[in-house]
């Protein structure tokens, strides 16, 4: 059986910039075949210059990407996606402004052929706090925030530093373990949202860098309590946004670890994979100290065999 398609659920209230970010990702997909599921074919879900062809149900996009609308039945649309040939490398579900992302993840879990990669919520730096106290939408918006594995705090150019810091802290208080990435015009680093950076690692780690975000490769030596390690990498204290790689378990099984914000997952992997974890994190002292932390978690050789 082929690998399940990784799925990112992109949520956030109306006007938070979901469509803009999706278009940015399409422009910077770096050869990945992305499939986009949108709730509706809005005014223009996809920038015109990216569209190669369009009919009622599907928009063909440069680089082998596609966009489909799911209307009232997401499950039905997902079943169509699973049957696409060629299969997409990564699926993005751009949910409606009132959707509860964890409910979408719940539905996703019932279908074969998909793997939930994570929930990315966009928040408009200027309006998110007002939306969260809206007479009718308050609980929906707060639920979206608490469901997030990663929050993309967008439109940061529209507010001053004081408001931005306040909004950042307020979000961090609502979802204590979430990773918050600041952007403007939806221009988030694609590797933050997409499961795209495995295989790109070099001696210096993934090639993408921004002012705040850096890639690195963790050297893995020895055997590990894999779940404990994954959980540690997903802890916001340790400065990572994403991590993916291979580790050998205490009993010698090769395992794949995948971390997206505060979400982590482990699964068995083929023995010939090389140990090592590619990471994306916030630049700073914490990230620098991560290798030492991981080294300290290796299980004592004495316990092996």
């Amino acid at each position, binding site marked *: 059986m082929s690998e399940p398609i990784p799925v990112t659920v992109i949520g956030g*209230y*109306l*006007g938070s910039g979901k469509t803009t970010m999706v278009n940015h990702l399409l422009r910077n997909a770096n050869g990945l075949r992305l499939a986009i599921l949108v*709730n*509706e*074919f*809005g*005014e223009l879900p996809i920038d015109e210059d990216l569209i190669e062809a369009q009919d009622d149900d599907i928009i063909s996009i440069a680089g082998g990407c596609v966009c489909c*609308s*799911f*209307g*009232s*039945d*997401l*499950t*039905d649309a997902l*079943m169509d996606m699973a049957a696409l040939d060629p299969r997409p490398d990564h699926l993005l579900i751009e949910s*409606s*402004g*009132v959707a*509860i992302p964890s*409910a979408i993840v*719940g*539905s996703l*879990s*019932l*279908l*074969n052929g998909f793997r939930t990669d994570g929930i990315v919520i966009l928040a408009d730096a200027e309006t998110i706090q007002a939306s969260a106290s809206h*007479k*009718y*939408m308050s*609980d*929906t918006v707060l639920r979206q925030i608490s469901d997030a594995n990663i929050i993309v705090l967008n439109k940061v150019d529209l507010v001053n530093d004081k408001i931005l810091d306040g909004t950042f802290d307020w979000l961090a208080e609502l979802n204590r373990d979430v990773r918050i990435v600041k952007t403007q015009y939806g221009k988030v680093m694609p590797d933050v949202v997409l499961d795209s950076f495995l295989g790109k690692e070099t001696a210096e780690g993934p090639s993408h860098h921004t002012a705040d975000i850096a890639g690195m490769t963790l050297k893995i030596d020895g055997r590990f309590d894999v779940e404990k390690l994954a959980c540690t990498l997903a802890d916001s204290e340790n400065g990572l946004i994403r991590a993916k790689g291979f580790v050998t378990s205490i009993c010698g099984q090769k395992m794949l670890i995948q971390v997206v914000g505060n979400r982590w997952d482990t699964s068995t992997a083929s023995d010939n994979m090389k140990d090592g974890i590619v990471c994306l994190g916030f630049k700073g002292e914490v990230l620098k100290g991560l290798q030492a932390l991981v080294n300290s978690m290796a299980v004592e050789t004495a316990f092996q065999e």
Partner: protein
Amino acid sequence: MSETIIYSAQKIITMNPSRPNATHVAVQGDRILAVGDLAELETWGPYKLVETFADKILMPGLVEGHAHTMEGTLWRYVYCGFFDRADPDGKTWDGVKTIEAIQDRLIEAEAKLTDPDAPLSGWSLDPIYMDNKRVTRADLDKVSTTRPIGILHASGHILNVNTKALELGGLLKSGINHEGIPLGADGLPTGELFGPDTMTPVGVHVGFNRSMTDSDEQGLRAFAKLCVRTGVTTITDLAARLEADGVESMLKVTSEDSYPARVVPLQIFMGATAKETVDKVVGLKARATDRLRLGRIKAVADGSIQGFSARMRWPGYHNGAPNGLWYTAPEQLAELYRLALAADVQVHTHTNGDEATEMVLDTLGPVLKEVPSPDHRFTLQHCQLADAAQFRRMDKLGMCVNLFANHHFYWGDEHYRLTVGPERATRMNACRTALDTGVPMAIHSDAPVTPLGPFFTAWSAVNRLTASGRTQGEHEKIEVAEALRAITIGAAYTLHMDDTIGSIEVGKKADFAVLEDDPTEIGGDNLKDVRVWGTVQGGRIFAAADL
């Protein structure tokens, strides 16, 4: 000019306030030429007197303001409901009262299937009436272990399946963690699937897929037969996806000479922007025919009360369930209302919980200041929990309401005990308050959720009895005359069609319900038992016995 036909009747209940009763009606083509006694009608010149209805009661053709054409399609599946129900061919199926009875009925249907892999589908199950004893896949496995079986619940929101269906849908596995899928002691799903997300993967293997809400040609014809049997001449399909093929087949079928109903399909606002939706409906409106009244929109604000997905104001659900779901954001609704008002397109909005109703009122109010629209008649559909203050606002905003009177009978006990508690259950579907406040009102069945039958719906609004026989909401009862108005001119008004249908008067469509009993004499307790002979639709006679 076509021939004038004068029908005599034992009594004609016209719903025309200037002339409430008459004995004769003259028809030319599809229109009413005159109503009165024979001497008055003779002044119009030569005529043919038809006495087929000499011993019958004529009423305006009944108008069902909230139904789904899917009712016609579902009758191809095995009826598994608790209450007796008549099918399009006039056969009354006994209600099945136990799981054993359901099994027997399914086994009988299974024996008739020749293809060993064909699914067996049933509908209208409701365990509430069977002491809430849940149906399991083991129960359905007794019918077949090799053929997929699925039974849709009356609410439409739950599907029961057998083991084979779970297997085909990829859900016969352990480790499922989903609130819509209860697990048995063995860690595998019990076979009950709650909500569309869990139903779809299995539903496609048991005959229930997304397109089933688009009635096909056969379904549309069956649906119209039900109309004739219940005295209905105009019926809504609320709502439809109205994809190109569906529109073509609806146009084709409703234009058949023998098609006995006027269908009013509302385009659902889902999966397209407000602008696209309004543009599409403006285009559809231009293609409308007399018997296919395209050109209206239905929006959905929240979910259902018994599914705990309706949006409730404080204090929320009686059993402490968390608040429900929004299906449309206020900004999207405001945009839809703005564009629709400007384009003269009517919008009906589904609200169940009182918070959803409040949101719609809060949204429409400001839009009406931007796009002043006297006589817009935007209608709240279901609107089950509205309180008196909300009805007063509807009145001031020029809104109409279509209340779900049948719901009170079928699920009133459940609402009292579980979902909203005694006080709010008592005010649900507050017909008296609506009328006293001056809000134009219709009442509905939401068929197939409850059976099509406006006299039953009227009886529900008059008596407010629940299935267990309790009167729930004495002070919200309405009079028989008011209920009859609601199922004719009242419903026509909510569709902006009261100028051509809903009463028997000169110039209007010759649409009649032909009755064996006089609903104004039979007594409120017996209103549901009014016998329907058939209809006259657009001047054409349709006898139920001849369908």
